């Protein structure tokens, strides 16, 4: 039993997020960066670019290429992960690239590449949403022109209840997981994946909850960016 008297095993209510901490501009070398803690997840994201795409034959004369790379440190999971990309991280890199490219004004930077590095240092369920959220802050920190700052959050179903932001145990034992990324101003959906079992009605409910979660996280993103600029002012 994962939910008892409406309270989840980590003490949260069904529509409650895990604790989140976001810091922008934490790296010296990167053009933009973000460190994010979300529950037991620790994520470092960096952005390089726009810079000339090399080798030249991959250049697109009409726009920048957006190339996100999601990667898990070998010590970030219970059983040591072998270094290098596996099939799961290849898929996540792909859907993350697509979600982030949605909001970037890529046509401003033809023949270039915008490289986004997402390193999962400590993992505890929901790393793809945490990674997109961190990468979006790093993009803003790098000054990449975007029509909105993307944000991601998952909803799911556990013990028959639609809940927000699953833990590892809820993800493993629960009935469904629905990671969603949106452009918060317009509520456009940039990423949506799902596995498990949801009726159409449950899906509607879960989607609504995920979007609500995204909007809460979006506030923390903006606060983190604001904090960085404040730091500058103080100096």
């Amino acid at each position, binding site marked *: 039993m994962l939910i008892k008297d409406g309270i989840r095993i980590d003490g949260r209510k069904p529509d409650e997020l895990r604790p989140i901490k976001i810091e922008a501009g934490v790296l010296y070398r990167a053009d933009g960066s973000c460190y994010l803690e979300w529950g037991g997840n620790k994520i470092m994201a960096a952005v390089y670019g726009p810079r000339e795409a090399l080798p030249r034959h991959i250049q697109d004369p009409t726009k920048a290429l957006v190339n996100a790379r999601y990667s898990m440190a070998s010590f970030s999971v219970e059983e040591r992960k072998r270094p290098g990309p596996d099939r799961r991280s290849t898929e996540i890199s*792909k*859907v993350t690239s697509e979600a982030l490219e949605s909001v970037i004004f890529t046509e401003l930077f033809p023949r270039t590449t915008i490289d986004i590095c997402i390193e999962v240092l400590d993992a505890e369920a929901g790393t793809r949403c945490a990674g997109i959220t961190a990468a979006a802050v790093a993009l803003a920190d790098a000054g990449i022109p975007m029509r909105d700052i993307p944000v991601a959050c998952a909803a799911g179903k556990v013990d028959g209840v639609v809940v927000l932001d699953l833990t590892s145990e809820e993800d493993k034992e629960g009935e469904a997981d629905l990671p969603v990324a949106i452009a918060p101003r317009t509520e456009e959906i940039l990423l949506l994946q799902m*596995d498990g079992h949801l009726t159409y009605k449950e899906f509607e409910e879960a989607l609504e909850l995920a979007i609500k979660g995204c909007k809460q996280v979006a506030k923390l993103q903006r606060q983190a960016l604001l904090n960085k600029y404040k730091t500058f002012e103080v100096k």
Partner: protein
Amino acid sequence: MEIPEVKRVSAIKKDYLARLAKEKKRPDGRSADEYRPIKIERNIIKKAEGSARVKIGNTMVLAGIKLEVGEPYPDSPEEGAMTTSAELPPLASPEFEPGPPTPDAIELARVVDRGIRESKYIPFDKLCIEPGEKVWIVFIDLHVLDYDGNLFDACSLAASAALQNTIIPNERYGLGENKPLPVGSPPVSCTFVKYENFIVVDPCLEEEQIAQARFTVALDKNGDIRAMQKGLRGSFTIDEIKNIIKRAQIHAKKIRKLLGEGNGKENQKS
């Protein structure tokens, strides 16, 4: 890093398709909610434990199933396992290149895999030979032969059909007589793309080349959702996605009939 497919479409063709889209017309004359003809042939590869060739229009894929005896995962010692791979060989398209699986092939295999896994189509608890020691591993290999769009649905359908006629090769391993692989009710996958604010089911290649966003949903026999995947760099509104799922529920019912499902038969199988 891949150059987006869209680059390869000429500006003229793109304009032409965009003009058509504004009139809600598709390049091959179909309506937005019309699949191309679907054809399923089963049991065509003798060396495979199960196989099916699926054609959707000019798109043709071959699914082959092999079973091997292997070790169970430590956290499910009494359950069989499954692994799904997709090959996009240079045979099937001038754009495909030899080499290890591209991100496209990996996404395709993983989305098909999730549909099958989450709908509990294969009862893994019936694939245990010796608890903790030996279980059946089901290998689903998807081989694209001709690529004219909508590989997600073609591969999903081929995998489902191939699993329906799969044999457990007990004899090869000295485990008694061969018998049919037990299967439940298959998932049915429906894929849509959006271009110029026109959302169509079963995209052909030309449509995929200019599509801004893609959506795949796998439904079970009750019309419940078992897996979803949004793709490409465009976006959908909430209402568009809700609408897509409702349209998919109608298509899935029809496609399910091609698998001999949807008429009470599925109860006999499980």
